């Protein structure tokens, strides 16, 4: 093999690996991601049932109904509330009136079927996405949030 052929083999191999990496990324980006949405956005513009969403807002006070391992609650941003159904264990920090992010899909009946619940707050903290969602809907009260360590708990 000449020096040139060796170099071409190397470049060809590098190109092949690079092309497969790019191909995999493009393929995965069309399928493996979730969009963030607020309850008002979901209510006014229902997403297609196959799209994965992260729904962020507050757990509506008085909406939590637990039945064994099944939980139903509503996520609200003050303008709209979306009913959520989830089976499993809730994170430690899941509470009514507190910030929450639910990940899953909206089913045909308009019920949000969550497979992951994230609650990240202490008494004064909320997830960044939730803060922005509340700001968007005008429900944001800055005095309720302060800087502080922000533990996160997650359940899948």
């Amino acid at each position, binding site marked *: 093999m000449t020096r040139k052929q060796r170099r071409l083999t190397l470049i060809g191999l590098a190109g092949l690996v690079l092309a497969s*990496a790019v191909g995999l990324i493009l393929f*995965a*980006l069309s399928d*493996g*991601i979730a969009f963030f949405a607020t309850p008002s956005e979901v209510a006014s513009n229902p997403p297609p049932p196959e799209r994965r969403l992260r729904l962020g807002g507050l757990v509506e006070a008085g909406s939590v109904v637990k039945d064994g*391992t099944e939980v139903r609650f509503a996520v609200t941003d003050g303008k709209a509330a979306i009913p959520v159904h989830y089976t499993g264990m809730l994170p*430690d920090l899941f509470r009514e009136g507190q910030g929450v992010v639910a990940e899953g899909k909206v089913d045909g009946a308009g019920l949000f079927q969550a497979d992951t619940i994230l609650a990240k707050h202490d008494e004064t903290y909320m997830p960044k996405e939730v803060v922005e969602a509340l700001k968007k809907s005008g429900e944001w009260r800055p005095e309720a949030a302060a800087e502080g360590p922000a533990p*996160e*708990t997650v*359940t899948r």
Partner: protein
Amino acid sequence: MIVELGHYALVLALALSIAGAILPLYGALTGDRRLMAVAPSASLIVLVFVAFSFGALTHAYLVSDFSVRNVVENSHSLKPLIYKISGVWGNHEGSMLLWVLILALFGGLVALFGNNLPLKLKALVLAVQSAIGTAFLAFILATSNPFLRLDPAPAQGRDLNPVLQDIGLAIHPPLLYLGYVGCSISFAFAIAALIDGRIDAAWARWVRPWTLAAWVFLTLGITMGSYWAYYELGWGGWWFWDPVENASFMPWLAATALLHSAIVMEKRDALKIWTVLLAILTFSLSLLGTFLVRSGVLTSVHAFASDPARGVFILVILCLFIGGSFSLFALRAGTLAQGGLFAPISREGALVLNNLLLTAACATVLTGTLYPLALEAVTGEKISVGAPFFDMTFGPLMVPLMIAVPFGPLLAWKRGDLYAAAQRLFAAFVLVLATIVVGLALAGTSKALAVLGLALAVWLITGSLCEIAFRVKLFRAPLDESLRRAAGLPRAAFGTTLAHLGLGLTVLGIVASNAWNTELITTMKPGDTVEAGGRSLTLDGFLPVSGGTYSGTAARFTVREGGAVIATLAPEKRLYSVQNMPTTESAIRTFGLSQLYVSLGDIKPDGATVVRVYWKTLITLIWIGAVVMALGGALSLSDRRLRVGAPKPARRGAAVPAE
């Protein structure tokens, strides 16, 4: 007073770092030996000052000095001693101080033990280290000063985040930082080589042990973090493709590639430019990781309080170092001479393939981590990239790499014989086929993918053993000759085998625990029994527990196998009163290499509670494999070849004493 001295020492360290960056660099450029000789002493004194400063902060934590704001925010007088110490770095300011301490430590080690380095190279390396130190010391003093006082001082602190009150915090960050920051040394060597315009096999010989050491620590740090998340977060996962995990995983991938390309450079004087690029890339990814974690752009378990000023400051440091080093690379890389030709099928060729796949995999992780940030900045749309993305991109790139791993060490340098290598792997081929046949027969075609995964793990494990068996002529020569040959092999050869074997064990753990696990989420009352992994769990009742700054409830489970009691488990639900934060403490019991994992949900007044029970087959192999990999690295590091002084560079006045 001690607090003020600590603060002052930090300022002095900054001043000295500036001097330690500029003077030796100027000396190296003008050939002034006296200025170059400033570098080691400056680095050592900076280490002393930073260590004093860190000690001062630790002291404030130990005596619970609540006039210090950082202590108030992260400590409590009732907290156990170990968490008072680890609490020093359980917050943003303290963790940055630890970062700088470890940076200074590495600089000090080069200053102390780098006697066999040419004066100019040593001066340049230490100057680069000092420049990094300058940036981060300035960052701490300007935006994240841990020594700020509070007046009036409160009587009690606000306690450390309960999730962090764990032995994991004492071990995970220091190990991880040793790995992250350790990458700065190979970066400094790369920059020094680019400034100096010369690079040779001896350079690779100096760089490899430092990279190897950093890699060992990074491996252990990531492993520890993974196990910590597994038992602390209470939902049985061990890797979440969380952006912060990715931030530590990317430098690991790049450092693994660097380790392998440095071998080619050391032995064959080839791949020079690529190795330098990888060294720059590895530390750039470490810096990017620091930025992602410390700037608050991400929402994560690891993000402490966020402050935009900090993000901007770290972004500036990031641009300065990454931009600067890549510009220097673009300007100077052409001046480094290329050497060493090799055929595509050869040891070098295999290592190039390793590098290509590892960097491509690293690029996919980088894309998945940064894409949401970029998309939000450009379109304002918020997305999250989760595990499915990484499973689809990272996984397929790892498979060819793992298939290739056993071939690599069996190929000769320069021109290898793939057929001969395959013959030596005959035993591994047979075992892989046996695994597939037996696996499909027992588990059925529904688990075909898992069986193939198992086959891959078997291939890695037996393949790496085949290599060492070939080298010692096992079963082809009398046993005593094999033993004699084994004793004569360099430790690095065993290191390679062990590291590749460890990879196989980790793959085995991942595949088995994913495919053969039981997950139950159910409501239980005292007296109820559930089955998992062939064992039965009975909830006996609840007991109150308390300690430190928490109180809570423990549930007592009795585990029976065939009617006989074999274990009791006591998962807890705790409430940390100071931060008013509930946590879940899972209970884990290891049987062989598999684990039974129980964690609790809310306990209702009637005693019913949601319980999560897992049986995870062979899950401990995930971490055991990683520790075996790190052991392999450590064994390689202890190889005499790496410790002996490198050969004297040609046409050099400076004497290079051998150790």
